[in-house]
C-alpha cells in the first residue's frame, strides 16, 4: 500500500516543481491570499469542498476578478462552483452570491483549468476581502479494492492536493478532511499532519508560492450509498386544463466497488449489519407538495415497494428498487406524478406565461451523470425561452401527443454532472392563447358530428341498382 503512494508522490513532486517554475511568469500575482482554509467533506460519494479565502490586493491596480485553479483531472468531475462574498462587519455579515465562470488562460501551467470569480466591487489596492467558495466533485472516490464480496465493506481512495491549488501566493493555509467513519486505512502525510477521529488535518502551511502542489491520498471506509443516475430524463408536460404531468426515467447504478461472486439472500436477510453494508435498498425522492397520481414502475410493470408521505410543504416518496443494489448493479425505473398547475405556472408582466420548476434530480444525495429536462409546452404556444441559473445546453423539439396536429414545442435542457445543489428553480417563458385549448374538443366534436351525418346520409340513400 505504501509503495505506490510514495512513487506517486515523487512523480507529483516533480510535477509540482515544474508547475512552480512555469507559474513565475503569471501576470496575476499582484493578489495574494493571506489566509486560506479548506474543508473537504468525504462523508457521501459527493465530495464537498468549502474554501475560505482571505484575499489581499498587493498590487497597485484595483482587481475585480479572482481566479481559482483546478487540476484537469478534477475539472471533469467538478459539478458546481459557487462563490459567496461576506459583506458587513462581524455579526451583521450577509452573504452575496458572486458570478463564477470557467475561463481559459493562454499560458495555463500543466493544463490547469480556471474559474473566475467576479467580485461585486473591485478590490482596491491594499484592501482585503473574504470569499467563501463551495465546489463539489463527483466520481472522485475510487473504490479500492475495486471488487468486494457481499460481506465486505467498501474502501475508497480520495486523491487531492495537500495544498490549495491557487494561482496566488498563499501565506497560510489549512486543510481539513472529514471522513465518514473512524476507519481510515491510510493517508499521505505532508507534515504537519494529524488525525483526530473522523478528521484529518493538513497544515497549517506557511508561505507557499502559486500552484503549489503536494499530492495526497486518503484510503478510508465509505459505505454511504453510491447512487448514481447514469441518465435521467425528466419530462414536464403542461396542460392548461389544470395539470402538470411529470415523468422521470431513471437509469440507476451503484457506482461503488463492484459486487463480486455470490449474492446470498439468506446472509443478506439474516445478518443485515454484516452483509451488504455498501448496498442500498431504499431511495428517497423529494417531490413537490400536492402531488397526485404517483406511479413507480419499470418496463415490465409496477414496482409495488414504494411509500408516499405527503404533507403541506413537501411530499416524500420512498422507493425501493426491485432488488437491493450492490456495487455495479443497475436498475431502471420510471416515476410519474401529476401536480396542480397553479402551483407552478404564472403569468409574467409582459403577457407571457412562465413555468417555475425545480431543476435537478428529486432523489436525495444522488449524482446524475446526464440530465435531460424536457418541458412540453401546450400545443400552439410560441416564443419559448428558458432561464436557468447555471449553464445548460438547450434546444427545441416537437412532440406529438393526444390528437395533436401541429405538435407541441418541447424545450430540452441538458446538463451533465448534476448534484443536489442544482435543485434550484428555473423558468420557461412562452406565450399561449387560451383559444388553442378548445382545438382538440372541437376537433373531436366535429369528427363525431361528421360521423353521424355520414350515418344519416347512408341510411337515407338507396344505393341499390334494382328498384
Amino acid at each position, binding site marked *: 500500500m505504501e509503495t505506490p503512494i510514495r512513487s506517486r508522490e515523487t512523480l507529483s513532486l516533480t510535477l509540482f516543481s515544474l508547475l512552480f517554475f512555469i507559474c513565475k511568469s503569471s501576470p496575476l500575482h499582484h493578489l495574494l491570499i493571506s489566509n486560506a482554509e479548506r474543508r473537504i467533506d468525504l462523508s457521501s460519494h459527493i465530495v464537498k469542498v468549502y474554501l475560505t479565502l482571505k484575499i489581499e490586493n498587493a498590487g497597485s491596480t484595483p482587481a475585480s476578478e479572482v481566479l481559482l485553479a483546478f487540476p484537469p483531472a478534477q475539472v471533469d468531475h467538478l459539478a458546481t462552483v459557487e462563490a459567496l462574498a461576506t459583506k458587513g462587519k462581524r455579526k451583521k455579515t450577509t452573504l452575496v452570491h458572486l458570478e463564477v465562470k470557467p475561463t481559459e488562460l493562454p499560458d495555463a501551467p500543466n493544463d490547469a483549468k480556471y474559474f473566475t470569480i467576479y467580485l461585486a466591487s473591485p478590490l482596491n489596492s491594499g484592501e482585503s476581502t473574504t470569499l467563501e467558495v463551495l465546489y463539489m466533485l463527483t466520481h472522485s472516490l475510487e473504490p479500492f479494492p475495486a471488487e468486494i464480496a457481499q460481506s465486505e465493506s467498501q474502501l475508497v481512495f480520495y486523491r487531492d492536493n495537500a495544498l490549495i491549488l491557487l494561482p496566488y501566493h498563499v501565506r497560510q493555509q489549512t486543510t481539513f478532511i472529514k471522513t465518514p467513519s473512524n476507519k481510515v486505512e491510510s493517508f499521505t502525510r505532508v507534515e504537519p499532519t494529524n488525525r483526530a477521529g473522523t478528521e484529518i488535518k493538513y497544515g497549517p502551511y506557511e508561505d507557499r508560492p502559486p500552484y503549489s502542489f503536494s499530492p495526497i491520498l486518503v484510503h478510508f471506509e465509505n459505505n454511504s450509498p453510491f447512487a448514481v443516475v447514469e441518465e435521467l430524463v425528466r419530462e414536464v408536460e403542461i396542460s392548461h386544463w389544470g395539470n402538470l404531468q411529470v415523468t422521470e426515467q431513471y437509469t440507476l447504478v451503484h457506482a461503488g466497488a463492484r459486487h463480486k461472486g*455470490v*449474492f*446470498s439472500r*439468506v446472509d443478506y436477510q439474516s445478518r443485515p449489519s454484516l452483509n451488504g453494508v455498501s448496498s442500498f435498498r431504499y431511495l428517497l425522492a423529494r417531490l413537490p407538495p400536492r402531488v397526485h397520481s404517483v406511479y413507480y414502475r419499470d418496463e415490465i*410493470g409496477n414496482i409495488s415497494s414504494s411509500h408516499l408521505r405527503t404533507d403541506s410543504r413537501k411530499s416524500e416518496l420512498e422507493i425501493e428498487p426491485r432488488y437491493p443494489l450492490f456495487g455495479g448493479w*443497475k436498475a431502471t425505473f420510471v416515476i410519474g406524478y401529476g401536480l396542480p398547475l397553479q402551483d407552478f405556472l404564472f403569468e409574467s408582466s409582459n403577457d407571457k406565461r412562465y413555468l417555475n420548476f425545480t431543476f435537478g434530480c428529486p432523489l436525495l444525495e444522488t449524482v446524475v451523470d446526464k440530465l435531460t429536462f424536457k418541458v412540453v409546452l401546450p400545443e400552439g404556444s410560441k416564443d419559448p425561452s428558458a432561464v436557468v441559473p447555471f449553464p445548460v445546453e438547450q434546444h427545441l423539439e416537437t412532440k406529438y401527443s*393526444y390528437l395533436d396536429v401541429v405538435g407541441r414545442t418541447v424545450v430540452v435542457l441538458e446538463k451533465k454532472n448534476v448534484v443536489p445543489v442544482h435543485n434550484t428553480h428555473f423558468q420557461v417563458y412562452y406565450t399561449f392563447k387560451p383559444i388553442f385549448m378548445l382545438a382538440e374538443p372541437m376537433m373531436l366534436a366535429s369528427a363525431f358530428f361528421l360521423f353521424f351525418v355520414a350515418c344519416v346520409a347512408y341510411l337515407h340513400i338507396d344505393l341499390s341498382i334494382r328498384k
Partner: protein
Amino acid sequence: MAAPETSSAAVPTLYTNNTLRNAFGGVLSFFILLLIGVLAFSIRLFSVIKYESVIHEFDPYFNYRVTQFLTKNGIYEFWNWFDDRTWYPLGRVIGGTVYPGLTLTAGTIWWLLNSLNIPLSVETVCVFTAPIFSAFASWATYLLTKEVKGAGAGLTAAALLAMVPSYISRSVAGSYDNEAVAIFALIFTFYLYIKTLNTGSLFYATLNSIAYFYMVCSWGGYTFIINLIPMHVLLCIVIGRYSSRLYIAYAPLVVLGTLLAALVPVVGFNAVMTSEHFASFLVFIIIHVVAFVYHIKGILSPKMFKVAVTLVASVGLAVCCAVIAVLIALVASSPTKGWSGRSLSLLDPTYASKYIPIIASVSEHQPPTWPSYFMDINVLAFLVPAGIIACFLPLSDASSFVVLYIATSVYFSGVMVRLMLVLAPAACITSGIALSQAFDVFTRSIKFQLPGISSNAEVDAGEASSAIAEAQNDAVKTEKPEETSRDRPSRKNKKKEKEPVEKPSTKAKAKAEKKRLLALPLEASAISLLLLVLLGAFYVVHCVWAAAEAYSAPSIVLTSHSHDGLHVFDDFREAYAWLHHNTDVDDKVASWWDYGYQTTAMANRTVIVDNNTWNNTHIATVGTAMSSPEKAAWEIFHSLDVKYVLVVFGGLVGYPSDDINKFLWMVRIGGGVFPHIKEPDYLRDGQYRIDSQGTPTMLNSLMYKLSYYRFVETDGKGFDRVRRTEIGKKYFKLTHFEEVFTTHHWMVRIYKLKSPKNRIRGKTKKSKSKTGSASSPKGKKKNP
C-alpha cells in the same frame, strides 16, 4: 343481472307490426348491444383494477414480445424474423411458426392509434386487445344467434357470452393470447356461414372465407371450423336438405379458404396435406357429386335418370374405391397418420399421456373435472339441453348447425380443459335460444291472459314467428303452418318441464281458441319467469365472482391476504429485472421451459427452451440436466453454453407450482429421450418425496440442490411449506454452481455455472478421463 332482463324487454318490442315500434326496437337493441359490449369489456378489467395493467402468464409474454418486434421493425422484418434469443443454439423462425393474427391485430391497432397521435404504449394495446375482442365476440354471437332464432335469442346469447366465465378466463385484460381474438373469429366465421346458408349470397360466402382466413391467422383451432362445417354440410346432404344455398355456403369457403389459409406461413401446405383438412375436401367432392346429381335430375326425365344413375354408380364406385385406397395408403404411410400430436390426443384422449409427455404435462391439456364445467359455464350447462330441444323446433339448416356445434364442442371440451373455450360460445348460443324461447312463451301467456291486451297478443304472436321465419328464409312459407308447427311443440316442451297440463288440442280449432289453449296459466308463467330471472341473476353473480376472484390474477405477481394486510409477491419480475440489468446481454439462461417466454420477454436473455416446446430432444436435455447430479448437469449446461440456471422454488412461502412439483415431468421428458434417467429412481415406493425418505438420486439431483441450497438456514429445520415436510438433505455445498441471486421470497433462485477449473499438473490423468467423458456426456451421466 341486467342482461336477461333487458333482452326480455327487447323481445316483445321486436314483435310489433308497427313501423315506429319496429324502429324503436331496432334502436333499443342497438343500445342493448352497445351495453353488452361495454359489459363484456368492463367485466374483464378486474385484473387491471385489482392488480395492474400488465401482461399475464406465459404465452402472452411471447405474443407481447412479437408485437413489440412488429411495431418496431415492421411487417417484412417480422415475417423474416429469426429469433436467436431462444432455443439456443438452434434458434426459432418466428415469422414462419407463429399464428400472426393476434400480433397483427394488436400491431394494427397500435399503429392506427399512433397515427392519430394517441401515444399508447404497445403494452397497453396488448393488455386491452382481449377485452375489446370479447365485445366483438358478443356482437358476433348476437348476429349468429339472430340468424338462427331471431333477435331476442341473439341478444340473450350475446349477454350470456359477454360474461361467460370460461371465456373470461382466457380474455381478461392482460391475457394477450391467441384465443382472445380467435373466439371472435370463430363465432364470426360461423355467423357468416349461417348467413350465407340463409341468404345464398356469394358476397357473404366471400366474407366467410375472409373471416376463415382471419381465424386461420389467429389460432390453431381453425381446424375445428374446417371440420365442423363439412360435417354440417354432410349432415344437410344426408337428411335431404341439400340446396343451392348450401353449395354456395360451402364450395367457395373450401376453395378460397384453403387458398387463403395456405398464405399463412405457419399453415402453408398443411392446408392441403394434413389429415385435419381431408374431411373438407372429401365433403367438397361429395357436395359436387350431389349437386351434379340434382342438376342431372332436373334435366333428365325420371326414366333416363334411373338409367344414368345405374351407369354412373357402377363406374363411379370402382373409381371411388381406387381413389380411397390410394388415399388411405398415403395417410397410413405417415407415422402419425397425418395428424398432429395435439389433434390426435383430441381423437384419442389417452394418446398424449401414452406417447407425448410434453403435451400431457401441460395442465390445460388435461381432461376437465365436473366442477370445472360448473365453474366455467355455470347455469348454461342446464340450459343447453333446453336450447338443443328449442333448436329442433323446427329444425332448420341454421339450427342444425348449432346442434352439431354444441355436440362436437362438448366432446372436445371433455378431452381438454383448454377447449372448454370452444364450448362456451356454443353453450351461450343454445342457452340464449332456450332462455329467449322460454321468455317468449311465458310473456306471451301472460299477455294473452291479462285483460285488455289480449287482442294485441294475437297479432304479436303472429309477428313473432314471422321474425324467426324470416331468418330461416326458406323458399316457400306461409305464415300460418310455420307458426303452428313451431309454436305447438315448443310450448309442449316448456310444459313438459314446468307443468304437464293442457295438452294441446287439434290444429283444426279456431285460432283464438287455440291460442288460449296454448297459453300457460298466468301464475305458472309468472313464477317461471321469476325463476328464470333468478337463474339469470345467479349466473351474473357467479360470472362477476369468477371474473373478480378466480380469473384475474396475472400469475406473475401474487398476492396474499394475511392478518397484517395485503402482501405482494413480486419475485418473478424481481428476478427477471435482475437478469436484465445485471447480466451480459448474450448470456444464456437455462430454466424449465415454462419460464422461457418470460425470460426472453422480461429479461431479454437467451434461453435454451421455451413454451413453444417444438423440440422434444432439447427439452429433454434440460430435463436431464435438472435430474442429473451436479457434475453431470454442469457438463450438459456447459456444453449448451449456459451461464445462469434459474429455478423456481416455492418452499419458503408456499407457492405450489414451483419446479420441485414439476420435477417429475422433467424426469419423464428427460427419460423419454435419455434412457439413463429412470423415473423409478426418483420415487420411493411409487411416492414422490423430498424428505429424508427421498431416494438418493432425488436428493442428489441438480433441481433438489438448487432449490434447497442453504434453505435450512432460514428456519433451522428446512421445512418446506409446499410439500409440508422437512427436507431430506439439509446441509450440502455446491461444487459446480454458485448462487448469484435469490429473490426476496426465495421464489426464484439464479445460479451461475462456475467456470471450468484450470488443469493442475498432478491431475492430468484425471482430467484426461474427464475430457473423454465430456465428449460423450451421456456415457458419463450413467455413472452416478
